[in-house]
C-alpha cells in the first residue's frame, strides 16, 4: 500500500473531515483477507481520481478511536465522506467497478447520468 494513503487517529480530522474534496476511506485490518486484497484496487483508484477524490486507508487495529467513532463492525468498510459528512457506507470487498460507480453516482449523479460520460469528462462544480 502506498504510504501517503495511510490515515490515522491523529490526522483523520485534518485529512478526511476537513478535506475540501470528497474522501473515500477504506477501514481495513491485516487479519481480514478481503481487506488485504483490496490494496491494489485502492492504489489504482487513488491514481485514477487523482485530485477529484481523496482515497485513504485506516487500519482499524492501530486506530481504535476512529474505528469506534465510525462504528466499524466489519472489514473492509468503505465510507465516502463529503464535507465531513458520511454519504455512503459499504461493507465487504468491492469490485473496482462497484467502487467507481458508487463514487461517481454519489458525487456527480446528474451530470454522469445526463451525459453518460465517465466522471473524468464531467466538469465538477465546487
Amino acid at each position, binding site marked *: 500500500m502506498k*504510504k501517503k494513503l495511510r490515515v490515522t*487517529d491523529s490526522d483523520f480530522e485534518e485529512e478526511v473531515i476537513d478535506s475540501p474534496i470528497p474522501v473515500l476511506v477504506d477501514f481495513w*485490518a*491485516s*487479519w*481480514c*483477507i*478481503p*481487506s*488485504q*486484497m*483490496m490494496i*491494489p*484496487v485502492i492504489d489504482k483508484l487513488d491514481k485514477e481520481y487523482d485530485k477529484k477524490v481523496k482515497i485513504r486507508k485506516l487500519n*482499524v*487495529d*492501530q*486506530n*481504535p*478511536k476512529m*474505528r*469506534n*467513532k465510525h*462504528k*466499524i*463492525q*466489519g*472489514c473492509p468498510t468503505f465510507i465516502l465522506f463529503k464535507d465531513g459528512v458520511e454519504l455512503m457506507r459499504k461493507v*465487504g*470487498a*468491492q*469490485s*473496482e*467497478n*462497484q467502487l467507481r460507480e458508487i463514487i461517481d453516482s454519489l458525487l456527480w449523479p446528474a451530470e454522469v447520468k445526463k451525459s453518460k460520460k465517465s466522471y473524468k469528462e464531467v466538469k465538477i462544480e465546487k
Partner: protein
Amino acid sequence: MHNKDSTCWNCPAIDLAGKVDFRACGQSVEEFRKRMDLEDSGQIVAECKRRPDLGYYDPMSITFKECPEWQKGPYGYLLRDMRVMILGIDGYLGWALALWLGNLGCQVSGVDNYSRRDWIKERGAHTVIPISRMSARLKAAREVLDINLNFREIDILNERERLKEFVDEVKPEAIVHYGECPSAPYSMIDADHAVYVQKNNVLGTLGALFIMRDLVPETSMIKLGTMGEYGTPLTGRPLYEGMFPADAVLTWKEQEWSLGGELTPRDPPSFYHTSKVQDTYNIVEACKYWWLRSYDVMQGVIYGVHTEHVSADPRLRTRLDIDEWFGTVVNRFVAQAIVGIPLTLYGAGEQIRGFMALEDAMQCMTRLIASPPEPGQYAVVNQMSGYHSMRELAKTVAKIGKKEFNLPVNIQRVENPRVESERHPFNPIYENLPKKFGFKPIVSLEEEIYRMFELLTQPNIKSRIEEKKHHIIPKTWWSGEKRKVETIEIFELEREIARSEKKAKSHGQ
C-alpha cells in the same frame, strides 16, 4: 530492500498480548457497544521483547531500517541472530535450509522424527546421495561451517507436549513447517497410507498451530503447501495466489460481487494434496481466530542438489530420492538418464507444472522469514520460477545428458497410473515473491540439471541409482491396482527434436 518500511507491527519481537484490541470488528452489536463504553480509545502501545528498555511505545513508529536489531543482509533486513525453528529439519529441503539460515547468522533449531527415512526404507528404496546420521550431520555443520544447530527428535503429531516444551525453550521468531509427508503416490498406496498421510499432515499441523497460539503468537509460520492444491482447471483460468484479487467478480443474474479475498477453488489430485488443502483452511482459521501470522507457500516442484553449504562437504549433502513415491520428476529423469532407462512420461506427457531449483527455493524462504506478515495476516505465495511440460523437461534432461555427458538417452511414454489431465492449459500467477519480497531466480533449469549430472554420475552415487532403479517405474495406481505401468512408445531424442522443430517451423508460417 523489500522490507525496509516494515515496522514493529510485523516484527516477531513485539509483544502485543493484551495491548491491542483485535476483536473490534465482526462482533455482535451488543459486544461492540460494550467495548465502546469501556474503551478509552487512546493510542495503541506495545513492548519489545528484544529491547525492553523502550518500555511502552507506538509499534508503528520504528521501521526495520531504523531498528538496530534488524540488519541489512543479502535478502533484505534480517533480525539479528533470528531464532528460526524448522519442523522437518532432516528432509530434502529442511536440511538445506538449516545450513542456509545458519550461514546467515540465524539461530536455527529443528525437529524431526526421521519419518522420511522410514518411509523410504519401508518402500525398499534409498536416497541416492548418501546422507549421514543426524549426529554426524550436526557435527559436520559445526566443523565445516561453524554452524550450531539445536536439534530435538520429536514427532509433531504424537509428541505434542514435547514439541510444546521445545518451542517454549527456544521461543522461535519464525517457524518453517516442512514437517509433512510430501508424496502423492505414497498417499495412494492403500487405505493405511492415505489415512496415515492425512493424519500426519493435517493433525500434526493443527497441533502446532495451537502451540503457536499459546506460546509464540507473534511468530510467523511459513508453511509448505503445494501448487498441486489448485489442480489444473481446464478452463485455463488464472491460478491466483491463494485468494481471488478484488477485481475478480462473480456475475450472476445481472448482479456483480467482488470475490476479493475469498479462497480460490482447489482441485487436489491425490489424498496427499487434499491434506495440504485441509491445512490451508486450518491455517486461515487459526489466523482469523487468534491473529496468528502465516505465509502459505504454494511450492512448485523443487529439483536439484546444490547450495553452497550442502556442497561444502560430503557429510553435509541433503538427500535425493528417485523412487516412484518420493522422487520428483527432474530428479527422477536425471537418474534415469544416468542408468539408461528411457525417461518416463505419464500418458500424453503434456502435463505442465511449476518448478524451482533448490537454491532458489532457499532464497525464497529466507525472504519470507525476513519479511513477516502482519498480525492475523494469512498470505499466499506461489513459489515457482517458471513452468514446463513434462515433455519439454524430458527433452532438456536428455539433451544435456547426451551432449555434455555422452549418455544414450531416450524418452518413453508409459500408461498413466494417476488420475489427472494429461493435456491442459496452465496459467499460474506468481508475482508476490518477485514484487513484494524482491525475489529473483538465479539458477537456470539447464544449469542445475548439469550440476545434477555432475554429481550423480560419480561412481558411488551411480551405483546407488543402479541398485534401486527398479523403483523408478511406477507401480502405484490411483485405481488401487498394483502393477508396473506398460510402455506405450519409446522415441529417440533426435526424432523428437526434429519433430518439435518442424512443429515450430509450421507455426512460424
